[in-house]
């Protein structure tokens, strides 16, 4: 194909120029579109950042200011002193880290078992679990709340952590990846006398490290951003996670635009940081998962 085009270009010089011009124009158009798109994607968050540094009242002016007339940190200070945001940050971090680490272990054990261990009832159990993917999680929330009440876990960290400790999606993701582990490696380890648990830890885990990384990031982000269940289960502000605290603040301080923007910035920065830092794993996981189906 390429050869033909080259021959064309050298034989017809005029069309070479127009082809290049067309190329240039297309490039300019494409980049213009991309940049406009990038601005649209970023503008809300840039405004959020900018408004968080504006003096009180400046965000409610006409015409709207895009850049603060002067930069002030008082909203951030107020968030951390009077409004206790440090506590909520800690709560969110604690819950997200605990859920991520625990669920990684639980989900990978199960995912590996489904992928590589042969046992009776495996297919039936797998089918039943697949059913669970269709059930929207909100259907479970009312009785789950009553269950938590009877376990005295309302308004506790565990009340938020426990429902997140195992996830059907996570199990399936790990299983999909674990299928590609060579059986001979596992059999060889068995012949060497290693226990199943040993095999899991020394052979399987190193082999599925990339998907574990993806799942870890995914779980961390999802748990940090989770809103509805923590909203339902936490009644005491001492245990609030950031999204719940933020929603609470917005009810009280609806007129304090700059303060709310500062709160939003603080909520979003950790997840953005995790994402930007580790985006390769995350994005690769999404794209790899989709190609396989």
């Amino acid at each position, binding site marked *: 194909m390429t050869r033909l085009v080259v021959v064309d270009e050298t034989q017809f010089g005029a069309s070479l120029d127009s082809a290049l011009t067309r190329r240039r124009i297309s490039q300019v158009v494409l980049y213009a579109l991309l940049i406009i798109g990038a601005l649209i994607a970023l503008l809300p968050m840039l405004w959020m950042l900018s408004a968080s540094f504006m003096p009180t009242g400046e965000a*409610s002016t006409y015409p709207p200011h895009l850049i603060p007339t002067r930069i002030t940190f008082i909203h951030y200070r107020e968030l951390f002193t009077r409004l206790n945001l440090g506590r909520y940050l*800690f709560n969110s*971090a*604690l819950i997200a*880290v*605990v859920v*991520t*680490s625990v669920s990684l272990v639980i989900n990978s054990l199960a995912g590996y078992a489904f992928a590589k261990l042969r046992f009776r009832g495996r297919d039936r159990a797998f089918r039943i679990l697949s059913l669970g993917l269709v059930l929207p999680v909100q259907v479970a929330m009312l009785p789950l*709340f009553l269950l*938590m*009440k009877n376990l*005295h876990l*309302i*308004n506790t*960290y565990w009340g938020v952590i426990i429902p997140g400790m195992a996830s059907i999606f996570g199990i399936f993701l790990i299983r999909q990846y674990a299928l590609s582990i060579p059986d001979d490696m596992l059999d060889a380890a068995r012949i060497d006398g290693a226990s199943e648990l040993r095999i899991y830890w020394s052979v399987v885990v190193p082999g599925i*490290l*990339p998907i*574990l*990384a993806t799942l*870890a990031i995914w779980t961390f982000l999802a748990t940090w951003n989770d809103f509805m269940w923590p909203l*339902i*289960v936490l*009644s*005491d*502000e*001492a245990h609030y996670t950031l999204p719940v605290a933020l929603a*609470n603040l917005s*009810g*009280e301080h*609806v*007129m304090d635009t700059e303060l709310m923007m500062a709160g939003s910035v603080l909520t979003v920065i950790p997840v953005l940081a995790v994402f930007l830092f*580790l985006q*390769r*794993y995350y994005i*690769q996981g999404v794209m790899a998962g989709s190609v396989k189906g």
Partner: protein
Amino acid sequence: MGLDPSRPVRISFVLVTGLLLAFAVASCSSASAGDKTTLRIWAMGREGEVLSQLIPGFEKEHPDIHVEVQQIPWTAAHEKLLTAYVGDATPDIAMLGNTWVPEFVALNSLAPLDSFAERSKEIRRDDFFPGIWKTNVVNGKTYGIPWYVDTRLIFYRSDILAKAGYKEFPKTWADWTTAMKKIKSQMSDKQFPMLMPTNEWPQPVDFAMEAGSPILRDGGRYGAFEQPAFRKGFDFYLGFYRQGFASPVSSSQVSNLFQEFERGNIAMYISGPWYIGEFKNRLDSATQTKWMTAPMPGINGPGVSMAGGSSLSLFAASQHKKQAWLLMEFLSRPQVQLQFYVLTGDLPPRKAAWQDTTFANNKYTKAFRDQLERVVPMPQVPEWEEIATTIFEHGEQAIRKARTVDQTLSSLDQDVNAMLEKRRYLLAQEKKT
């Protein structure tokens, strides 16, 4: 894949261990704070903010008691309190809107306070406005100590009223309507004599009560919305919007009511006593000499207003009832109530506090003192919060002309009767036993 995730794995391992340790420490240290008893009190809105300033006085008198104040916004307070009840996570004391007291009593979540009150030297029942104290009595027992009274009044621009020919605020509905017509004729298209957000229930309820409606009938078993009394009040309420006296906006659409008041874009607003403080703090100096309060006009003369307010209630699950009572006594002292008034503008429920010069010379609170003589309590049913919400939701439908008045009132009756069905059933059961 060419990725080396082992470093992130190690980092997260350290993070996890660290946080788990912190977690363990955090969940253990909650209970024991040494020899001190810790009281937990929840309060809403501005009162919650201000409470923290009153607490040091109490802690100085009682060094063995430490008080933790938690603030909740009004928009979420009802839910949060109920969730706390359901999850056995209630505080020791909570500030409850007095219309919520019957609800929490129905759940058996509050402790009766009569024995405390009878023996108390600080809290004497006869010193409280009887109509207000009564709102806290359910089935003959007292379940809350009134903390501040709330009733609705008119806040208005005295200069705009004067320009329309009214040196004093109108005292009857008819006069009021004429005044608004006059003011509207002197205003531009974008201005309105009255600011009355459509998502507030006190206005339609107040007008209905003035017209003599009990809102609910048969001991709170059925709605009384289709009866003539409610209809009369409701018609008057709708008249504000139909005649262009008020713009059909919800409270969240009002960007800054103080600015609108300053600029004369609105001339009247119905709200509670805490707005005295807000107006004093937020209106510019030019407008400070131009506003005043007035009692609600009635059909034939000065009208009634709702007996609102908040109470301090003690939860039955509290492990520190005696100490909690001490805090309630402290907050009920006339001097502390005066301090509270200065900080919030909330009015004291005790006559003794009203005798202070702070009020004697206060031209703004005079109207409230007057109105307190003519307050009417809301129906004391646990479902009140939801019924109130339904009233303004149906009102909004009628205002925006999506429905006629007849449709609105009949569907109100339908909906409220459905809400009260369980209550009817339980009351019938009780009668049998």
